[in-house]
């Protein structure tokens, strides 16, 4: 039994912490995103969990967790999650003999790691309610290969990406687990339209519509069996996202304590009121609980333990609930000040709300816990 970080992991944590402090909480602009990608590439973070043969570092889910906790602590709205998700999907698809042909996938991975190519992944649809099997975007076999039609929603970093990974149905009915395939396409492909917007917490997102998009056969990276691959990749992303949430939660906790220790009412620091003290203890406990499940889930994933899925689902439930709790309490403890737009508290709170929603909210994962346990 050992929950300690290795010396390399401590170094990674400290350098991420330094970098994030220098950056400050990131502004909402395309320029800022581009420069972040370049920095992340230089620091070796884009390839943190990717194998060395494509320029990566070959790190584990624990390394990813260590990095992401620091990114979340500094409220950095970064492009890393998109890279992590696409990287996992591409790696898994490489196992598929057909896609590996010509080394398309490995050279793409190398370009992603070096920051030369940006990539986004479009899996969810507007009415899928986090259910991955719900794929009404259709890919029909045609002479040249496939014709794709449909709409993909909530595509993180979608509008900025050079390349897109898209899931679509090649067989079966709307909610069937099988018959889902994964396609790679260039953003300039005719028939593909991207509608960019920002999420309420400032993440660049897009809605993607496909209207008779014709793709060559090779564009299909995984044929009919993409669902388990998508699920496994999302489980990796959930660890990263939860680590970000934990970082954000601790920043919220400590910045709220700092504020309340300065704020005086009734001739006392408000942290002298026991009602306030106990609230902070509840918030602190919530952080500790998340940390326990986060470590457990990361280690289970590294070990490919049989209950890795279950623990990860439990983690996402905990993160969703604890994140909202931390946000709500921080606002309350700041009084009207917590209700203002520019304060870091509000931004962290919105980030935690968004994290709950990304890749399935607490209720969605609670149902998975029921199913898996």
């Amino acid at each position, binding site marked *: 039994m050992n929950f300690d970080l290795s010396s390399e992991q401590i170094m990674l944590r400290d350098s991420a912490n330094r970098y994030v402090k220098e950056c400050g909480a990131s502004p909402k602009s395309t320029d800022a995103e581009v420069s972040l990608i370049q920095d992340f590439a230089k620091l070796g973070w884009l390839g943190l969990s990717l194998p060395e043969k494509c320029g990566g570092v070959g790190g584990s889910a624990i390394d990813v967790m260590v990095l992401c906790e620091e990114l979340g602590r500094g409220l950095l709205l970064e492009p890393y999650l998109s890279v992590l998700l696409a990287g996992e999907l591409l790696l898994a698809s490489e196992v598929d003999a057909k896609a590996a042909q010509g080394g398309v996938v490995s050279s793409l991975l190398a370009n992603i790691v070096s920051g030369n190519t940006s990539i986004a992944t479009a899996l969810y649809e*507007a009415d899928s309610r986090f259910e991955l099997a719900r794929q009404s975007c259709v890919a029909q076999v045609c002479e040249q290969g496939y014709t794709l039609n449909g709409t993909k929603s909530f595509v993180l970093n979608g509008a900025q990406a050079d390349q897109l990974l898209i899931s679509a149905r090649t067989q079966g009915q709307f909610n069937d687990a099988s018959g889902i395939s994964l396609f790679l396409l260039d953003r300039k492909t005719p028939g593909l339209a991207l509608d960019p*917007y920002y999420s309420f917490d400032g993440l660049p997102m897009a809605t993607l519509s496909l209207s008779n998009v014709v793709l060559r056969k090779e564009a299909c990276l995984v044929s009919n069996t993409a669902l388990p691959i998508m699920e496994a990749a999302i489980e990796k992303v959930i660890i990263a996202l939860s680590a970000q949430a934990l970082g954000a939660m601790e920043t919220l906790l400590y910045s709220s304590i700092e504020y309340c220790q300065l704020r005086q009412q009734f001739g006392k620091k408000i942290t002298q009121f026991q009602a306030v003290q106990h609230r902070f203890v509840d918030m602190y406990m919530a952080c500790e609980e998340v940390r326990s499940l986060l470590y457990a889930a990361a280690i289970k994933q590294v070990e490919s333990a049989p209950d890795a899925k279950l623990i990860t689902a439990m983690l996402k439930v905990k993160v969703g609930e604890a994140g909202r709790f931390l946000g709500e309490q921080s*606002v309350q403890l700041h009084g009207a000040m917590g209700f203002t737009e520019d304060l870091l508290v509000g931004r962290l709170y919105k980030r935690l709300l968004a994290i709950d929603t990304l890749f399935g909210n607490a209720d969605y994962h609670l149902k998975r816990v029921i199913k898996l346990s």
Partner: protein
Amino acid sequence: MDLNFSAEDELFRLQVRDYFKNDYPKDIIAKVSAGKSMVKADYQRSEQALAKKGWLAVNWPKEHGGPGWSVVQRYIFDEELEIAGALNVIPMGLLYFGPVLYTFGSEAQRERWLPGILNSTTFWAQGYSEPGAGSDLASLTCRADRQGDEYCINGSKIWTSYAHFADWIFCLVRTDPASTRHDGISFICVDIRSPGVEVIPIRSIDGEHHLNRVEFNNVRVPIENRIGDEGKGWHYAQYLLGHERTSYAHVGARKAELALIKNAARTAGVGGSSLLKDPLFASKLARTEIAVKTLEYTTLRILSATQVGAAPGNESSILKILATECAQAVSTLMLELAGADGLTEKAVSLPLSERQGLSGAMCTEKYLFDRAQTIYGGTTEIQKNVIAKQVLGLRS
């Protein structure tokens, strides 16, 4: 004991319902339900429509221009207004200051200010909180120094809702510089366009402009703008807060929101299926319905005690906690309903259901705005301190 409304009250309900259905401005109802930001002209038009009917100052007695309704009639009116999706009045003049004015104001002051409130030509703001005085309001430091027939006001007020709409602001100020707490505070009305008053906007977490900081720099105010006695402002302020806290029930709004939620939930599940069949969502919905029912009967229980002559005292704290937590429960359910749609920013957010315009962004915005409910009008923690001390006799 009897839970039924009387036959006259039921008839009254039908009249009110009919008014909102047929005579109240329809475009305002449409704008409210589309979740658009309301501007001053919307409030004014809504309030003037109600004034024309004689239904604006609903809590005022007849002799001051109110309809002279019973507590139950007022409850019914509020409920119907909110179920119809009409715009709530801006409360500062009508619900808060009005009762102070007709109870403690001089004849001249009533003549001067009541009509403008009654026909919605004058808007008021509430200048209580200060940067250093929130929960501990009695520590306020904004000062009014007596200079002949005038006060000279210096200091700042903050979190002043709708000061950017206001013509006047009623302020708690320290008139006795030697005093430190409740004594030595006076209740003074200031023309917000007086030289030396500056209104600075503050944006809130939902991205909207509700709040302001109001700075007073050598603002000269004639002494006849003071309500009641010098140094007795705290008493009038408390009287007002009792009215303010009992005005938070909003049972009709909660019922209307629940109806919207249920309607949208019918098609918000996977692939357009019903979310009402999802056991987790259904159980959250059921809990929220229990919260709304609890609020409804608690409000009625407290109001009917008021009716037979008991003043709403500490009950206003109970109602404040219950009502605001209930509002938060309902908007948290909205957030659940929205799911991933709640992520989108306002401009691109699509309606959750074709039949009505509850969009994902509206759900998120409502949820975020409702965080303020347990802060304004005295935080939940402060209400709990009141109940612990005054009701349960617990002292620290």
